[in-house]
């Protein structure tokens, strides 16, 4: 079974976003910490953006992955039934 690329991409960006946002919260209000980024808590804000992006990607990837495994399960069940039941000739109807 293939992996849907959106899953690892989503996972990586969610984690990166989470780390940045958490670090942003932790350093929020520390004097002079964000003087480089014009006083904007860029870690918090950009971390949240990445978290949303990553979450969406992971969700889409997960849905597709579930669908794929469902298809694979049905396929497998069909194969098993075919091998278990002795093949009989049901005539032209079948």
């Amino acid at each position, binding site marked *: 079974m293939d992996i849907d690329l959106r899953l690892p991409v989503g996972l990586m960006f969610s984690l*990166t976003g989470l780390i940045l946002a958490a670090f942003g919260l932790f350093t929020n209000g520390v004097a002079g910490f964000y003087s480089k980024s014009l006083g904007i808590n860029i*870690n918090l804000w950009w971390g949240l953006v990445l978290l949303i992006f990553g979450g969406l990607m992971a969700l889409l990837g997960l849905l597709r992955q579930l669908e794929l495994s469902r298809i694979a399960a049905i396929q497998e069940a069909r194969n098993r039934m075919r091998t278990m039941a002795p093949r009989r000739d049901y005539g032209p109807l079948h």
Partner: protein
Amino acid sequence: MNLTAVDWFVVILYFAFVVAIGFLLKRRIKTSKDFFQAGRSLPAWICGLAFISANLGAQEVIGMGASGAKYGLETAHFYGIGAIPAMVFVGIFMMPFYYGSKARSVPEFLQLRFDEKTRGLNACSFAVMTVFSSGISMYAMARLIQALHVFDGLFRKAGLPQGEIFTFAIVLSAAIVLLYIFLGGLTSAIYNEVLQFFLIVAGFLPLVLLGLKNVGGWSGMRSAVTAIDPRMMHEWKGVMHASTNPMGIDMIGLGMGLGFVLGAGYWCTDFLVIQTAMASRDMDSARRVPLIAAVPKMFFPLLVILPGLLAITVTSSQGQITGPQVHSAVLSPGSASSGTTEGRGLIPVKMNPVTGKPMYDANGNPILDYDMATPNMLLHYFPTGILGLGLTALLASFMSGMAGNVTAFNTVFTYDLYQPYMRRGASDRHYLLVGRWATVGGILLSIATAYAAINFNNIMDTLQLVFSFVNAPLFATFLLGMFSKRTTGHGAFSGLIAGTAAAMLHHGLTLPAEALRGIHGGWIAVFHRYPSDMAQNFYGAIYAFTANFIVAVVVSMFTKPKPEVELVGLVHSLTPKPAESHLAWWKRPQALAAAVLLGAVVLNLLLA
């Protein structure tokens, strides 16, 4: 650069994912087709993002920032004229032959269409070129890591000598790229290129936003840049004559040279990018790949050129780092930046690597180290935390460029050099194994190139010059091959040789203004002086293309063409049009192409 634990965490997280993808995909590699061509099974959007990412190496991210700082918005021509039309062309007109012919590589297409010697010539030059390009990429990355002092703290703590950082950076990046390609082949490279694409956007977008906010938005940037050089805020104004635009080029050189010859030559014939499209699952996807790639490509000028342009508007020089190889000669950080020995904005003066003193041109003006524009912007605007993300984006861009070269090399080596010339008719397992070891060999050769570059500073410039001679005429061969059934193998081969010779001769006889004879041209005699090296480059390409075209046509007239049955699927007039009627009208490649071109025109008008 002061990196803290958070920054390292982000960097290491990225490396972990890159390697994990390689391991996950290992199970999928059973045949050589899986390894070299990703099983021809990937969806169009993945290949499309990898298509741009493969090209988004160091030269692109650092080089476009540098060019933005030097020439301004005119740099966007590399996208608007150079890349977008060529990407549309390859998707609509050329992909049916690349994908439909079942060729496994671009040189193999040449073998099917022409003959063995044309393939041999192309395969050899291409293989050498990819190895050296990835070596250049490695070298540039190691230099940048040194200049930004990324590993200095780490090395100090571990008690290792600082001189080993160069080796460490090269070995680390090579080992990671090697690991994931060795395991997962082209699929792994493509998946990681997609990851790298998103990372580059995630790392550079906040940089552009912060930079723009600092100067007061777009209008603030316009007035700040205009105060330095009013020509830099225009992409098109003054393009009719070489003396009225910063790059020193004219309309003919730009349209013909950059658009028709160089841009099309790169995007339509370079296996480095074409391989990603050839890995997609069916003909419709393959044709959509370059078109999908063109959509984000349109907006990339804003992402990679603007940092350079914004860098020259920054007035304080806090957090600035001078060029590579400089340790003691730091520019006085507090003093006003308007003096002649100072850099411009965040752009430092280039230092002589031997003496450590500033370098001056023939007129006594300091030479600026534009390559530091984008890295200095990262240091200037990013606090710790997001700085790790910015650094990761930079590393990702280096690695994606390197990986594209390595996968192109192992495929061309195995299918176009090893299989036909060294061992024919071996088992598929054997070629898969050869491909894996070609990856190792290619990376080792790249490392050797990177080290050669330390000792012979000019080797890189010389190599890139030679490659430009080989590449310049290529597009004519493909154009004649795909659109005229009369073109013969002898014609194509002699045309390529003639085109390369013309490019060399042109370079030997002309010189850009204010350049000394030698590596910049004029090594035979100086017959003509161009206003800039850009103009020389574009016109050289036009001459090479024309020479190739004429010689190929003339020789073809006197030699026997292949019988028509052998050319079905390879030449336009003998190939049935790819079926499109099963697609809704807005899903057809033409509709997508029209939308892309319209978007490109609008964007060009906005930047005019």
